[in-house]
């Protein structure tokens, strides 16, 4: 059920993550192939966002390690782009679409350097790719939800990365935006980029993705969408709550239990 690949672009080994001592991801072990469009699927509260946050080291993990391009995150950061959930930021912030897309250049610019003309041109170009060039100067709170999501995507494009993590890019967008986004993701994957997307709409999984992860507190399956997105595995992901597992999780929080007897250092 969990298919492993040679020369993975992403390798996760025995990853466990907790919030406030309550484990929300148990012993994730997986490898993912390069150049694919990959969906992470599972019910609400399954830990989909948590998984990519843990990969990006935005939240601490209790055990295990993550390797990207066979390296630790720090060494390959500028080859990776992360798109947070749209709701995670305050869109009332005084900035234009272009300002936000320019932020995608900050990683390459480094500290204390101002965006150059070249960066602005890249940013404009990325806005064009998502069909938002006409809104470059528009204040971000005046954009619709779909347009805001496109701006976030343009910012990711401006990073010119090889591996993309996107947290629910299709959530709350209109049909036109959904089409723009999926076309864009497909063309990125055709150019050899790897795109990993947290997704909650089961209807479109087989149409959108090459590879799929089924997640519900633990990894149920990982593999090509044709062989993995099956009735049986979906049943296991969505049906039959693992009540025992969640009860143990709750108990660990209540009692203030450590996850491992010996706290290992971060990563191997």
């Amino acid at each position, binding site marked *: 059920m969990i298919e492993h690949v040679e020369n993975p672009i992403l390798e996760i080994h025995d990853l466990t993550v907790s919030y406030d001592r309550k484990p929300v991801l148990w012993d994730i072990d997986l490898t993912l192939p390069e150049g694919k469009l990959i969906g992470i699927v599972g019910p609400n509260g399954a830990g989909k966002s948590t998984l990519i946050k843990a990969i990006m080291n935005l939240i601490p993990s209790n055990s295990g390690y993550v390797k990207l391009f066979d390296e630790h995150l720090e060494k390959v950061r500028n080859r990776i782009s992360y798109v*947070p959930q749209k709701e995670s930021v305050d869109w009332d912030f*005084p900035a234009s679409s272009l300002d936000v897309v320019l932020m995608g250049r900050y990683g390459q*610019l480094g500290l*204390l350097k101002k965006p150059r003309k070249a960066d602005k041109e890249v940013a404009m170009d990325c806005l064009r790719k998502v069909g938002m060039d006409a809104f470059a100067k528009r204040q971000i709170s005046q954009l619709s939800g779909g347009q805001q999501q496109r701006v976030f995507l343009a910012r990711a494009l401006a990073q010119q990365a090889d591996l993309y993590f996107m947290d629910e890019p299709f959530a709350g967008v209109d049909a036109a935006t959904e089409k723009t986004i999926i076309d864009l993701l497909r063309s990125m994957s055709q150019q050899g980029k790897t795109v990993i997307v947290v997704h909650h709409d089961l209807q479109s999984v087989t149409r959108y993705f090459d590879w799929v992860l089924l997640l519900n507190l633990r990894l149920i399956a990982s593999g090509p969408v044709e062989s993995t997105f099956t009735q049986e595995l979906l049943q296991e992901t969505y049906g039959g709550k693992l009540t025992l597992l969640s009860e143990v999780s709750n108990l660990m929080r209540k009692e203030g239990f450590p996850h491992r007897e010996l706290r290992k250092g971060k990563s191997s």
Partner: protein
Amino acid sequence: MKNLIDFFSFTDSSTRYVVLGVLLLMSSSSVVGTFTFLKKKALVGDAVAHSVLPGVCLAFMLAGNKNPVWLITGAFITGWISLYLIDTISAKSKIKEDTAIGLILSVFFGVGILLLTIIQHSGNAEQSGLNSFLFGQAAALVGKDLYVFGGVALVLLTTITLFFKELSLLTFDEAFARSIGLPVRALELLLTTLTVLAVVVGIQAVGVVLMAAILITPAAAARFWTDDIKTMIALAAFFGAVSGLVGTYISYVYENMPTGPWIVMIISGIAFTSFFFAPKKGILHKLFRQIRIKNKMNQENILKLLYQLGEEGKDFFVSRSISDITTRRPFPMRRLIKGLRTLKRQGFLKEKQRQWTLTKEGKLKGQRIVKLHRLWELYLTEYLRIAPDHVHEDAETIEHILTPELEARLEQLLDYPSVDPHASEIPYNH
């Protein structure tokens, strides 16, 4: 008047220094405050401001004099401790941030007042003027103090300029900032340090009690005028500087007037003005827009009605009296007359001896509203599956808001229908 000239001509060198100092202090605190405001940490700023008082007093007790370097160090230390405690309490315990802020603010301020009272009863001759840390006394800003406080203010402004890009990204989207490898913890620490320093330099001008107003109010006022963070920072600095200048002037003219409360009065005045009069975001602008919309709807309703009457009589250019109109639709009389007059002025109506007639342009305009109304009714029944007897009320408002672009799309979508759900003809203009 003579005072005014004295003050602003800067002939007196000590006045000149005080003014320069206040400008620096106020603008640097306002600039740092912009980030505090955008991070929604206004109350945290208030807590820090109150928490520097025990530091100031302790430093005075230990040093035995009012050496500004000591006072700033003391203030800085307790200010920092208070922030650390707020963060730790809200992260590690069940107590929420607002409660933590309330706790820390009152405990630290209480201790500060206690220490201040002890100092006042100690008979130390140097203590005079320490009181000014409560409500601020810009006039005390002379000599060495000015250099120290002014220096800190300059450091603040330079640091913000240098790290502007990083600080704004951190404020807007922390997760993304982390993901591209920005040293988020260090930047948070930097911003916290800047906030504490801004408070420390600001208290000389406004005092601990009112310091939060200087951190937050200029930024809040500036937000009304712009959607660009750089402009916002510049405006906040400007508002801060102006209020500092005026406040200092008032306390210069009237002896024993504390500077702080006056500065706060002025900056609050600026904030209220912005709140009411700022273009686009101000209350007044919104009010005017409401009135404009109401008038527009009223006028369009009159034209629509005259068109409908014409439709029934198969002649659009019949003269009608006011009672002809009101028997059909009970317009409030004053609104009706006002609307009729405006429409006449605009050339959509003609009037002769209190008889009103549509002009050609008026007929077209009325016809468009009727068309939009019926198109929308049809759209609601066909696409939203709403019962025909429920669509009229919606169409009454929507008919006034549809743009020509939406109109064209609606026509296309419905394929230029000829009748609405109530079998009334949809009038086209060809």
